[in-house]
């Protein structure tokens, strides 16, 4: 969508004002505007004209025409929107819209036009905003001026005072002979102070590079019916031989990269990464057979000035994990005050490589520690098929699980399952004979959910069920990095951290 120019023309075809938004030569724009009145069609019910190279969209305004010149494949809907805005701008500045009035307010109009379009693209502004923009009434300027005024006043006061002092001194010297010392240079100090004020008022806010919360799956934002619509569309396209990569895969690829090397832009020179891996095997009749959690905390330092640091860790573990520090790390300090640092505070951490500094793990049979409990009830319905009810429950409500995918094996060759009731989304992969129940996010707001489907088969067909998810918001063990400090001087160091909870294996057998 590119808008070349906005112009106001009189009915007899004279271009009164015109503002161009892209680079074009004077002869070209004059030619285009001169051609417009001849091309314009009266008596038709539409208000655009196309030539070989451009399109004119116009709107009559009393005795004038508001004309936009656009490229031929410019978006007409957008252009009309812009045109409407333009033609509402004009009466704001001209009371009677005639030639004389437009000429009189030509500059105001041009200023206003500038606010509507930037480089040929429409800005999303409304009339009121245009008003404020063109009035240029700035609060900051007023504040600035007021401050300056008081400063000037102060300076004057001081000046008077100093003048008095000087006079006094002079009188003293006169009286007391040469006392020496002059009081020059107050003016310059004053000026420098004023300069300081200016720089302060425009001092850039420190913009912290915000690491974008990386939502991982493409499915994360899709809701209900609509996503199904999209999926259907995509499926159809695929069936027609079109190659469609799902955004999910795109993202997961991104995630893979993120695991191995975080983009430099997102990390500070001190980067801490916590990774927890779950390995869960549960029985189909409930009960946890075994759950193993292994976690690792990695440190990466990119800048050698931050080699010697302490990391403060807030350990809220209530699950009874076994902690183990790196041999070179001072274990006592960690256990007593939650500080990770090298035993020898003068030795730096290795640079530019991922160093594991803390390891912990958990091996348990306690069902209540399972992040997500799955309950699957296949019922033989007596007609050679099964009605399967499956439900999940988020047991640790502080977690937020992303991209939950529950894969249920289904008998092969009996067609697609008949889904009766469903929270979230499902997908039947007939080649792998798997029914995938996917939920973009599970957190406290939807901590339980269920799916019901029926399919031919026997109750044993639906196991083992595989579950996968990950989480980046909160760690399973609830260990948090609270700060990083220099070993010497205890001054805080900027750092970045990320944590990930991954599923290595989660099986219901």
């Amino acid at each position, binding site marked *: 969508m590119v808008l070349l120019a906005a112009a106001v023309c009189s009915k007899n075809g004279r271009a009164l004002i015109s503002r161009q938004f892209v680079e074009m030569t004077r002869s070209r724009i*004059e030619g285009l505007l001169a*051609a417009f009145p001849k091309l314009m069609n009266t008596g038709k019910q539409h*208000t655009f004209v196309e030539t070989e190279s451009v399109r004119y969209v116009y709107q009559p305004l009393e005795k004038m025409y508001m004309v936009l010149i656009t490229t031929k494949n410019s978006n*007409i809907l957008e252009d009309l929107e812009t045109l409407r805005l333009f033609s509402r701008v004009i009466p704001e500045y001209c009371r009677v819209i005639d030639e004389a009035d437009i000429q009189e307010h030509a500059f105001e109009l041009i200023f206003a036009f500038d606010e509507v379009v930037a*480089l040929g693209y429409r800005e999303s502004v409304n009339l009121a905003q245009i008003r404020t923009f063109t009035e*240029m009434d700035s609060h900051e300027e007023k504040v600035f001026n007021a401050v300056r005024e008081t400063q000037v006043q102060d300076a004057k006061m001081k000046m008077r005072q100093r003048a008095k002092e000087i006079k006094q001194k002079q009188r003293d010297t006169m009286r007391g002979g040469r006392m020496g010392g002059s009081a020059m240079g107050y003016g310059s100090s004053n000026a420098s102070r004023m300069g300081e004020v200016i720089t302060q008022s425009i001092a850039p806010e420190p913009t912290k590079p915000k690491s974008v919360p990386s939502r991982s799956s493409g499915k994360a934002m899709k809701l209900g019916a609509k996503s199904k619509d999209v999926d259907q569309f995509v499926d159809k*396209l695929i069936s027609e031989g*079109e190659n469609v990569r799902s955004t999910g895969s*795109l993202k997961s690829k991104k995630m893979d990269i993120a695991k191995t090397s975080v983009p430099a832009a997102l990390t500070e020179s001190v980067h801490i990464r916590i990774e927890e891996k779950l390995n869960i095997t549960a029985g189909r009749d409930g009960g946890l057979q075994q759950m193993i959690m292994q976690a690792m905390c990695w440190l990466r330092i990119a800048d050698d000035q931050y080699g010697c640091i302490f990391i403060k860790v807030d350990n809220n573990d209530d699950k009874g994990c076994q902690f183990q520090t790196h041999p070179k790390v001072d274990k006592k300090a960690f256990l007593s005050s939650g500080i990770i640092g090298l035993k020898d505070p003068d030795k730096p951490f290795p640079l530019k490589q991922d160093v594991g500094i803390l390891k912990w793990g958990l091996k348990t049979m306690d069902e209540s520690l399972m992040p997500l409990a799955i309950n699957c009830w296949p019922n033989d319905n007596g007609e050679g098929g099964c009605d399967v009810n499956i439900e999940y429950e988020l047991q640790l409500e502080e977690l937020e699980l992303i991209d939950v995918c529950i894969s249920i094996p289904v008998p092969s060759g009996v067609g697609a399952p008949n889904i009766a009731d469903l929270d979230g989304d499902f997908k039947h992969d007939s080649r792998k004979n798997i029914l995938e129940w996917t939920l973009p996010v599970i957190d406290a707001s939807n901590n339980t959910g269920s799916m019901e489907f029926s399919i031919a088969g026997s109750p044993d067909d639906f196991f083992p069920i595989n579950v996968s998810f990950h989480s980046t918001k909160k760690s399973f063990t609830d260990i948090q990095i609270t700060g990083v400090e220099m070993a010497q001087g205890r001054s805080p160091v900027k750092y970045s951290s990320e944590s990930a909870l991954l599923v290595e294996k989660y099986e219901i057998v």
Partner: protein
Amino acid sequence: MTSAESICYTLIYSPSVTDSEPSNEMQIKKDIEHGDIRTKTEALKRVILMTLNGEKLQGLLMTIIKYLLPSADHTVKKLLLIFWEIWPKTDAQGKLRPEMILVCDAYRKDLQHPNEFIRGSTLRFLCKLRQPELIEPLMPAIRSCLDHRHSYVRRNAVLAIYTIYKKFDQLIPDAPELIHEFLEGEKDASCKRNAFMMLIHADQERALDYLSTCIDQVNSFNDILQLVIVELVYKVCHTNPGERARFIRCIYNLLQSSSQAVRYEAAGTLVTLSNAPTAIRAAAQCYIDLIVKEADNNVKLIVLDRLIGLKEHPQHEKVLQELVMDILRALASPDLEVRRKTLDLALDLVTSRNVEDLVKFLEKEVVKSSNVQGHDITDKYRQMLVQTMHSCAVKFPDTAASIIPVLMEFLGDSEELAAEDVLVFVREAVHRYQNHKPLILEKLLEVFPSIRTIKIMRGVLWILGEYCEDTSLILRFVTEIRKSVGELPMVENELKIAAGEAEEAKDEEGKGDKPSARRVTEMGTYVTQSAFSVASKSTKDKSGKTIKRPPLRQFFMDGKFSLACSLSTALTKQALRFLDSCRDTRKQNSFIAQCMLILSSVLHLGRSGLPEKPISDDQIDRVGSCLMVLSERHTVMGDIFTSKCRSALAFLLETRAAEESVQRKAAEKNRSALNAIQPDDPINFVQLLAKAEAGSLEDQFELSLSAAVGTLDQKKEARDPAASKLNKVTQLTGFSDPVYAEAYVHINQYDIVLDVLVVNQTSDTLQNCTLELATLGDLKLVEKPSPLTLGPHDFANIKASVKVASTENGLIFGNIVYDIAGAASDRNCVVLNDIHIDIMDYIQAANCSDAEFRKMWAEFEWENKVAVNTNICSLIEYLQHILNCTNMKCLTPEKALGGDSGFLAANLFAKSIFGESALANLSVEKPAGKGPDDPVSGHIRIRAKSQGMALSLGDKITQTQKKSKK
């Protein structure tokens, strides 16, 4: 560089400034130096206006820098921004003026101004600056604006960085990183959009990176941001088709955006992403939805154009064919243009599978529209509907059966437009579809009494006369005629009525009955009472009362005896057919007698003086000859009447069909030529193409932009610089003049650039050598060339541009004035040859329909009649010659021009690039009685809206119509 070729952002029309004398420079200076803010502002405005109008106020520069630049007033600041935009920042050698450094410093301060709006508008101004030397010192300030608290400043800062990076990337090589970082931290939609736009153009990789972080939230974005995302997807997929698959989902999501503009854009992009039917369908459905939902006709028309464009692709066409019924929903719009486009599109797309539905829908529309009567637009619309159904029936003969009865209802319509088309259709149908013939005739006979317009009546009479072939039908036809003619003989009957009227008028006075009651008693002879009481024209007789007559009789009484001719032909044909089909001589005789009675009574009526106008001699001849044929029953005549007529029609239809099929084939050939890939076509590998070669792969957006800005033509021209240039050199002075000058006349679309070479042939130094130009016709000199000094035997190039506003033969004339250094003489002057501007450079062949031609012919005020005076002996050759030398297009089809008839008439049409139409009619003949070697004679009449056009085109023809002998 002349001002006409320089980049221009502002145009302000200001007659007052140009008229005033330039001496007020001093006044302005005074105002700026000593005035208050108000007068300063006014003065600055004047300076801007004067600069825009080509005045050179170099003396004011320091005044402005000194007195206005430090001003704190907001308006002055903003006006100054415009001032610097238009003020030439370089001197004649293209070097930066030293004063500009001062300006630059002022802008550094403005970029740190506490007022966010001043910062913003200064940043916006920087987008237009083209001097890297000026921008360089500002870079740190621009960068810091990126972190300003106000989004207004930030978004303009992004734009400034974008344009600076585009023009001079060495000034800010890290712009993409900078903006990418900025984008990630940005919240404001407008800033985000600008930043994203910058990334799209500067660094697509980064744009993609950013997009992939937020691809799922796309739906929640602001519409302007969504638009640039669509643009990105389009661009990425264009340069790198392998990426397509990644974005289909995203685009599909955007297809459901709440903003119509986004949906439109997304649909357009989706089509380029995938050729799969589902994608095309989704896009087409989106388009249709837009057409139906958007109330604005502009949108409807343009989106329809997109659909039509979609149709061009054979694969897409199939998808669209399924959507025909949806497309038809656009007919709900009241605009004729939209409806016409929709119907055309639907007709193109319709297939045998859905033609039934289409016809049903059209029928419904017809019924709907006939409920709203008397409106000009609905009548035209109905005509369109009828035409569409007609074409349907031609394309799919099976539908004719259902279409015919519906259309026949129209014949009784009082509006001619639709009824005429129906008639044409019926004529074709009855000729082509033998199996529908009885149905058609039956219907025709049924509606016959209700026909109210003379044209239709004639047509129907012809068809019935031609195609009623069975004895029973013939008899029915004659009965209908008799009913319609009324009681015979007509004259006596009319006299009686008139007399009866008089009597009854007397009665009426006596009885004082209500006129309405009496009206019933007056009628008596006709059958189609109800139809008549509504519609037949009623004439007033002497006593002022209305008399109702049967239709044909009514026509005759109104003096429309042209009907008599058709009636006589039809009756004769019928009679002759009757002779063939019925062998009973008695019946034959009685039938013929009946026909003759009708005809003779019509003749009698025509001469009786009762009708408003008497029958004309031609018509008497015609009826008389028919009577003669009937009485003589000659076989030769019989043959003419019974079979020749029909074969004439058959021939007409055949040629028409042939023409259509030729056109269709040509169109198909074009299309297939476009799509087909010849075996020896080169294969383009995207990776191996140089940027410049990638013509076919060029981005549509860029392409249309450069076309619009006008750079495309220049590029093309650059390819063959010498070829055309040398043809257009005009010598302006003689070789022995002290100053020799020649000009190359370069004709752009709307302006003429004269590149004048001036050579000093003397051994003196010429000072103040000025090229003075003046124009005649609709030309305007844009700016005066500035004076220059020429050393001995030195030469210089002067450029002057002239603006052209309309098509007219223009003349540029002038002289060169100079002083000889050291000589005391007056200024010397060399008068230049005139430069003629040929209008043919502005005229292009164009096409228009016959109806449009006729309309314009009637409308245009200026006619120029040029007598043919040529040495060409062949008519066709003469026509060709005229076409060649005027760039006009012959509208008369070639078939009509063929034959060796000794005369020729053709319509020509052309358009100027300013959009003016020029019509011409060529009527020439070979003078009778002279040999084949005599030249053709006749007239050419040219019509145009403006006098200049008609005159100059006429001149052109007069000049060139003699063919130069080779």
